[in-house]
């Protein structure tokens, strides 16, 4: 299944991100970021479905929650960064 990971600068921001998306009817789930997505060590990200990205970015911009980085899963299980 293809999905996006929105990397957040802290767990609290990930929680705010998840809450903002859920309030807008977008299914979101907090995960610890895979190590390959995090340059400086442990971080948290929010997983959303492929179809939700555009709306999610609009919602987050409105809420003042700019994502640090966004990644999409590849068919081989790796991640590719999405230019915002």
């Amino acid at each position: 299944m293809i999905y996006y990971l929105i990397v957040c600068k802290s767990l609290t921001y990930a929680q705010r991100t998840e809450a903002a998306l859920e309030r807008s009817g977008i299914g979101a789930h907090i995960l610890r970021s895979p190590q390959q997505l995090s340059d400086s060590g442990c971080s948290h990200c929010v997983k959303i479905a492929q179809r939700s990205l555009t709306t999610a970015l609009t919602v987050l911009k409105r809420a003042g929650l700019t994502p640090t980085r966004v990644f999409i899963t590849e068919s081989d299980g790796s991640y590719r960064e999405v230019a915002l």
Partner: protein
Amino acid sequence: MIFLDSAATTLQKPPAVARAVAQAMGTLASPGRGGYPAAAQAAETVFRCRETAARLFGAAGPEQVVLTTSATHGLNIAIRSLAKNGGRAVISGYEHNAVTRTLSSLPEVQVDVARGRLFHPEELIAEFARLLPGADFAVCCHVSNVFGYILPLEEIAGLCKTYGVPLVVDAAQSAGTVPLNMEALGAAYLAMPGHKGLYGPQGTGLLLCALGVEPLPLLTGGTGSNSKLQEMPDFLPDRLEAGTHNVPGAAGLTAGMEFVQSLGMERIGAREQALRRQLVRALREIPDLYPIESPRPELQSGVVSLVSKTHDVEALGNALGSRGICVRAGYHCAPLAHESGGTLTTGTVRVSFSAFNRGWEARRLAEALADVTGRSNS
């Protein structure tokens, strides 16, 4: 037992607080340290505590709410973050040792005290107006822990805005009883305990930080974020929260804040003030005692100090304690406030109410004091 020392800690808590603590201890792990359900639920619990506090006190967002161990902890962070070599701080003459000792430990900071007689807010405002220009920061308590004096915080905050001086608010005695909005005040930091007017467990506290402040960590260590870096994260709340969170404390504090929200701070405060007025009326019948009450009732919270013409305050406190009535006697860790209030040589017996006290308890205290002092007009 009659507990009338809620300015120290509210011993009587809503039952939901203990339930939340017990549930957290039995089911929750460490937030941010794992992806498994017990860690995720712990993170949710801590986030809910931040959200509730942000809503209750007008913080810009949950990430601006830092969990501390006490108001003192938060005040230390705030003061040490704003202090600089050769700098100058302005404080009110009613500050607690949490402020004055912290500043004393920073000899490179000049401290100017804005003085004003007890229950004369206009004098305090004038002093702040005189001292604030050119200061690096100001610290002001919202309510005096000794006298229950509600300081003119809005006016002082307005002056701080005018002169561009960051303000640190010590809300140790007001959080939960006097409405307070950080954004409206424009304060840089707002420090409060969790275990007094917010009815959380002891060992909990909150530091609310304004957007754009640059706080210095008091502790360094693991945060569950940016783990490869040796510097503390530059974002809140992680920057100020090294080490494992007090998750049961956060769970209990949330339950306490929800209790306060459900009753309303104004209603709780008004009730406590009514109990204080009832007590003072009764104490005025005892010639040996002098309760220190504001002629303007709106300037005093549910805290009242009293002195005796013939009895040592500690002896009074002990005598009441032996009758099952819990009050606090002495200097209440605030010699500066006693200096301002004129009780530095005697100390006081302090009576402080909570949402759980009733009128009969105030009556029993007055009867006990009449008995202990051996005198009564009636």
